[in-house]
């Protein structure tokens, strides 16, 4: 692969055109063609799901669940309302890809949601947009109006006799509302707290009706798959990891930002695209998939390719593709203190292990960072973590534990130095 990547892009290709968000730009480049074809030929839902399965499209929100499989969970013969929900509650620290899709290619997302609605038998869809980026909510509403005026939404879409509409909803910035069932609760107007599963949203979702929730990037990839075929999408990436993926690279690099590259690209290439580590420093560690993903030391990370399987093998996760780069000047204790504070503030409080444990971990890390650590603290942190992970309704507990345990695992020396010398190893 060449650096920078010049091959086909799935989501952010409109940025190569002037006026990227406009309906005309999208339509002129083959937009809504897939939808029209599906509606005109009345392509059966099974066939669309087969195509998505073939593409090996995996959930872009973090869990990497195969999208085709998820869609096939929806009850086929359910006689009542069903819903499609798009999760644009991009709360994961380090992630900033979905906002660019909504901002620069909203119509591909709209088309993806309409196709999803058609496939799953839904009559309405909702896009839950992160509350802290309100302009996005407004620009999304504008795009919906455009699509409605052009006949892609509302009654009798493209003359097919089929009705479908989309609505926007914006949250208020709670991290936990990115969890699919908490998002549904919030969408219903309740307090955003995850639901116990099962039942899964596919059988009991929004307002108790079968619901499919997908990440923005996932849904935005659907039109491309329908237009070019599942095989073409799969060929972009590598087996079991189809397509390109947007990586939000941030931290100590010269050119942070969103880079859409095929899955399976070596990490070194991405780092090169981002201009390398800033000021010629040495790479120390990378969090490859957003703040919930365990940290990986530089040597491990440099040996990885960027796809779900390779990173999982290395002991972390691709997550939402938020690559946080840390150079040698980073104090890992301080970095972890900041991460733990986030989870402490964002725990919804429903499950005791998470509510109490995130605060506990934060306070212990804080005292280590501030020279008040005790020798037994590291074991305590590992122990508290073990008692949170797997003991909560949603994955926020696990997500809070991931960084703590991995930071200590890979950088135990720094923590011990902090405790022993009451100062930082990095600066001294």
């Amino acid at each position, binding site marked *: 692969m060449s650096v920078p990547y010049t091959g086909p892009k799935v989501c952010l290709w409109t940025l190569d055109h002037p006026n990227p968000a406009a309906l005309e730009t999208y339509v002129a480049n083959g937009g809504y063609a897939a939808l029209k074809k599906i509606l005109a030929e009345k392509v059966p839902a099974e066939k669309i799901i087969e195509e998505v399965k073939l593409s090996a499209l995996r959930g872009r929100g973090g869990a990497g669940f195969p999208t085709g499989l998820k869609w096939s969970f929806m009850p086929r013969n359910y006689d009542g309302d069903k819903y499609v929900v798009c999760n644009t509650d991009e709360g994961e620290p380090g992630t900033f890809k979905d906002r660019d899709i909504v901002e620069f290619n909203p119509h591909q997302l709209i088309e993806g949601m309409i196709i999803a609605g058609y496939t799953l038998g839904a009559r309405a869809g909702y896009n839950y947009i992160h509350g802290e980026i309100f302009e996005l909510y407004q620009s999304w509403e504008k795009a919906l109006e455009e699509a409605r005026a052009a006949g892609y939404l509302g009654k009798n879409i493209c003359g097919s006799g089929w009705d479908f509409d989309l609505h926007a909803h914006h949250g208020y910035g709670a991290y936990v509302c990115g969890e699919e069932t908490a998002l549904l609760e919030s969408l219903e107007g309740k307090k955003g707290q995850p639901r116990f599963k099962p039942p899964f949203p596919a059988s009991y979702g929004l307002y108790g009706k079968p619901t499919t929730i997908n990440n923005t990037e996932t849904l935005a990839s659907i039109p491309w798959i329908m237009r070019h075929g599942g095989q073409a999408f799969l060929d972009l990436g590598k087996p079991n990891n189809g397509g390109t993926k947007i990586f939000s690279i941030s931290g100590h690099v010269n050119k942070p930002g969103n880079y859409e590259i095929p899955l399976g690209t070596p990490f070194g290439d991405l780092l090169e695209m981002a201009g390398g580590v800033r000021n010629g420093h040495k790479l120390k560690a990378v969090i490859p998939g957003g703040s919930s993903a365990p940290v990986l030391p530089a040597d491990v990370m440099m040996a990885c390719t960027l796809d779900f399987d390779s990173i999982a093998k290395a002991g972390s996760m691709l997550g939402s593709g938020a690559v946080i780069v840390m150079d040698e000047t980073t104090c890992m204790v301080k970095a972890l203190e900041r991460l733990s504070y986030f989870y402490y503030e964002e725990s919804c409080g429903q499950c*005791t292990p998470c509510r109490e444990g995130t*605060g506990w971990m934060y306070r212990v890390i804080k005292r280590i960072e501030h020279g008040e650590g005790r020798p037994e603290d590291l074991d305590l942190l590992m122990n508290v973590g073990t008692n949170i992970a797997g003991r909560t309704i949603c994955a926020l507990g696990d997500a809070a534990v991931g960084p703590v345990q991995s930071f200590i695992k890979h950088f135990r020396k720094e923590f011990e130095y902090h405790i022993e010398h009451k100062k930082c190893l990095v600066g001294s």
Partner: protein
Amino acid sequence: MTRCIHCSRCVRFGQEIAGMMELGMPGRGEHMEVMPFLAHQVTSELSGNVIDLCPVGALTSKPFRFSARPWELSRRRTISPHDGLGANMAVHVKGNHVFRATPVENEAVNECWLADRDRYSYQAINSDERLLAPMVKDGGHWVELDWRKALAQAAGALKVIRENHGGDAIGFIASPRQTVEELHLFQKLARALGSENVDSRIDRADFSGTRAGVEWLGMPVADLSGLDRCLVVGSSLRKEQPLVAQRLRQAVKKGLQLNVVHAADDDLLCRVANKLIVRPSGLVEALAQVAKAAGARIDGLGTVAVSAAAQAMAESLKSGASKAVLLGAVAQQHPAAAQLHALAQAIAEATGARFGFLVDSADQVGAGVVNCRPGQGGAHAAAMFAEAKKAYVILGAEPELEAWNSAQARRALESAELVVVLSPFKTRTMDYAQVMLPVAAYAETAGSYVSMEGRLQSFRAAAAPQGEARPAWKVLRVLGNQLELPGFDQDTVAQVLAEALPQGEATIAGRLGNGIAGVAVTALHAGTGIERLGETPIYQLDAYTRRAPALQATADGQAGQAAAASGSLIARLGLSIDKPVKVSQDGAETVLKLVRDDALPDDVVRVPACLAAASRLGARYGELTLEKM
């Protein structure tokens, strides 16, 4: 909130059981806090249950907390003395002082809940107003006597009345919250003295018609949970029967269609299928509409025009499998109660529904079963006050507050030559009584109640009576001895019960019956003036609730002391909300605070009964006028 573990059981209780979510948990994670997140305080009539279901003791009982250690308390079972449900509960006692009351689980009765009035009325047991020694009025002054002298004086005075005027000159009024044993001995005493004037239905106006037996719920309480169609007539359900309302609310969630005919559109905190809200004088006509729509076989409905709501109610009642028609306290206290009774019975017959009464007193059914009712030629409660007797014996009641026409009752009692009062409290009866005999409060006496479903529930004394007070059954027994009457030689409360109800619940079952005959439906024309709706407020129900400061301090307690009218009536009369207003009825007047309640129909003013300030007005229903102060 340092103890709170954020389990949210209290929040869920509000949502799922009490029917209104008054507690919430704003904040996230560690910052989450339980608080009343609406503008007002917690107003639910079931609010105390959150104390029981809080697993860590973060929510505590304000009157009780920090006053005793739970392990020092003896937990003794008793039965709630208030409404006819007979809620099972335990009072917690230390050193003969009742510290608190908690529910005892009984799925067939109160499930695991307790209404606030059951929970907090124990405060009255420890009230400063307790009558602690026998007292006799001597030359206009009250003097304390020992029991022997006091009983001798009471017996002597009663003998004089009987000799001078005959036994029929004595009226016997009992509270329907006394035990079966006490009521049995009370009516026995009356009859032995030659009086058939004995009654416990002090808040009723209409005694006409021929009744088949003692009015009761007509079914087990637990069956209310399984109803799928129900018509409730004249009941402020939540305030009158907090736990029955809770049962019906759960049933509504499972598909019960609740139909309501009432004089106020109170929020029942559940879906009401159909409702007819009319002024009190229009209740008979409203129910007649339903009867006509249901095709009930009852005469006199020729001119009645059936409204759409009545039609829908009749259709609702005709469908469904398990259904009931229930008469509430407003219907029972209504001036044309017998007509409502007959109409409801006809509707139940026509629709195949069960028919019953929401009995608002713990032992009203028991009083009927032991025949604490006027016999041949005797006067019922209202007649005893309408035509004053020479003497009265009063057991536990406060007629000057509770009677249907409280002003008339007071006049009758004041004109009497002799009033003997057996009461746990220094009541206003002291203004006119000659002898005050202190008797045990609830939880201080052994005995039994018969609940509205005919369930006989016996209990032992949980604490010794305060001061010189004695259990009323013992006082009555000794009074019988003093009067040299036969049949007053029981040694234990069990002997009294065996005499009153030889076969226990079987005896009760044989005496129950809701049928009525010989009533013509005539009150089909509603009045036109401003009318009084004289309900008993939830916390003015009896002598105990009136003397429980915790209950009086609640929103319901405060609301029970004010007159209420709809906003449009207040505007029309040029009155001001939350200001005193002059209320006049039957030539008497009083001043009450006026509050706004848009649940009331126009031209209806809720002027609570059982309230000292309103007692001089008189009848619970009738025309009245409001004037600006």
